[in-house]
């Protein structure tokens, strides 16, 4: 492996180094895939099969009933509407939250790397510290703050919360990324008379799709999967999908319907998963193109 040429695609597939390389990758892939495999298989089995068979065997009789049920009719409390209501609520929370938090964090990162002002590093350090504060600790004071701002229990409230909690990691990402860009670019732009916003919008943003992709991935995942904030700050009308998922998964009516639970789980994970499948390519391609880094 040590002599592996770092160049174009290998010619010999039976190189022992390559065999080890692929074996390791495949073993790792099995570990990562196992739960997904079980989820998908289980979600397509009927309940009798689940009770009798083992979790690894593929379904004998494939059924999509659990999927329909999870989406459309699974019950929580009195309502049997499945996940579909939560899906749109989650979208309503997700889209503005992602956009606003990324806009703010990218400007932060930019200010922190090119326009440092007295105390800016102090704020940044506190921000990083903030990323270590357990959410649970902040709930009480945040309820008070949002109440005073008059946005508790509303869409604005939940967007506000997601913006705050996305800020530390996103700012760190943008700051590190911008810091790795050559200072000459910035200086040249300054000489050309470009201002704070001009440099940001005309020079930096166009150079930064990879980091925006990373930020989007992080935020979509975090916000879509959030349960705690959504349930407290969003208000009943806006309960996100994870609340329904929790209700379906944790409220068994009679027999625990593993197949419906698994289908509900996959459905809830579908949006972030999709983002990963689509942007995973962009992610690496973008970074490979952004050779300025390093």
């Amino acid at each position: 492996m040590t002599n592996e040429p770092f160049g174009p695609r290998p010619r010999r597939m039976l190189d022992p180094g390559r065999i080890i390389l692929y074996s390791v990758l495949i073993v790792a892939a099995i570990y990562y895939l196992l739960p997904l495999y079980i989820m998908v298989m289980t979600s397509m089995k009927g309940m009798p099969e689940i009770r009798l068979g083992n979790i690894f065997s593929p379904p004998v009789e494939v059924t999509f009933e659990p999927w329909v049920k999870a989406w459309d009719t699974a019950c929580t409390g009195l309502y049997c509407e499945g996940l579909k209501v939560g899906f749109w609520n989650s979208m309503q929370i997700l889209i503005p939250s992602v956009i606003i938090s990324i806009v703010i964090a990218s400007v932060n990162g930019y200010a922190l790397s090119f326009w440092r002002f007295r105390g800016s590093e102090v704020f940044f350090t506190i921000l990083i510290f903030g990323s270590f504060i357990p959410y649970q600790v902040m709930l009480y004071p945040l309820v008070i703050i949002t109440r005073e701002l008059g946005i508790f229990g509303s869409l604005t409230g939940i967007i506000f919360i997601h913006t705050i909690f996305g800020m530390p990691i996103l700012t760190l990402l943008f700051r590190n990324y911008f810091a790795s860009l050559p200072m000459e670019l910035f200086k040249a732009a300054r000489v050309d008379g470009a201002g704070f916003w001009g440099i940001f919008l005309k020079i930096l943003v166009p150079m930064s799709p990879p980091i925006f992709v990373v930020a989007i991935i992080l935020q979509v995942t975090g916000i879509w999967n959030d349960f705690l904030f959504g349930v407290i700050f969003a208000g009943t009308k806006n309960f996100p999908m994870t609340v329904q998922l929790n209700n379906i998964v944790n409220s068994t009516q009679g027999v625990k319907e593993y197949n419906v639970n698994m289908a509900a789980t996959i459905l809830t994970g579908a949006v972030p998963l999709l983002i990963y499948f689509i942007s995973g390519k962009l992610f690496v391609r973008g970074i490979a193109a952004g050779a300025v880094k390093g």
Partner: protein
Amino acid sequence: MIGFRAALAATTMLGGLSVASATDLEVTHWWTSGGEAAAVAVFADAFNKTGHNWVDGAIAGGGNARPIIISRISGGDPMGATQLNTGRDAEELVKAGLMTDLTEIAERDGWADFIRPAKLLDSCRYEGRIYCVPVNIHSFQWMWLNRGVFEDNGLEIPKNWNEFVAAAPALREKGVIPLAVGGEAWQINGMAGVFQVALGGVELFRKINVDRDLEAAAGPQMTQVFEAIGTARGMVDDGFVGRAWNDAANMVITGKAGAQIMGDWAQGEFSVAGQKAGEDYDCLPGLGVYPVLDTGGDAFYFPKPADDNPEVVAAQLEMASLLVSKEVQVDFNLKKGSLPIRGDIDLSAANDCMQKGIKILENPDNILPGGEQSWSSDTTGQMEDLWVEFFNDPDMPVEEAQARYVEIIENAD
């Protein structure tokens, strides 16, 4: 429809406001198991029939629901009504002036005359005013047995704990898990309370839970309780970590397990599964040794609406009155498996197990206070931690556990 008229009267009384028009009330609760959901539906239907609209806000898991409920009330986004445990949590919200005062309606309907045991209403009282409605009586003092499991394996159906202990090895041999338990701490804590009564009798239970008698807590009878929990430890399966109570109940229903020590809400699961008391399953109040009941229960609170909207308040009072009305109490409790909070109603439709419970309640000596009346949720939490730690740690000496128990009682509030 006594309740309806009473509510109207109350509305006028409370300031001569307009006749109650259709109002949406969002009701939060954590009743999401099969039996529980069926019981909630009784409330919702009854309320909807009054022309108002029950907006269901179920959140699975009390641990998820409570923070949401409390933070929403204190955050100024109150729901119309909510299930909440009586006790300190609620008391502080009441103290902060966040709950609608129900005294008018309670006096009008004469709650104090029919709600029994009277303690239930006391726990809703703060400075002489009433802030919640008890809707049922729940007792942890039950053991549920699958008759088929014993019969099919040629075993006598145990009539008390000791017989059950004797039968356990035989069950195990036949591949049946003797005792179904869940992984949540409150389940184990509740089980310990059941053993307290079954092994130490009413006296021990009262000494500890009412008098906070440290000697009793350190005494030999309590040692037996610890040992019994140790015995129970040997009767469970490996898969209990993280299991919910209703999944454990389901193990008994399906015959995977022989029995479960669980409150009467478990009965809701049996009836949802179409099982019949006395035919498919049996129940042993007080583990068949001392048939008494503790009287915990659920209560509904009505947070003050944001702008003290009189229409919402009127609808709240109407719902409060409705929840304890005769008809609703019968239907609700039959579905829930709990006992009604009033003794003046006809429960001939109740099954064998509920009848047993009603009979026990007739004698006031058989009534023990429920956990939330005895201890703050903080103290209960400490007990839960201790019991669940002890239950899972065979290496923990009984003396050490008991010493810690005494310490908790000593510092209890």
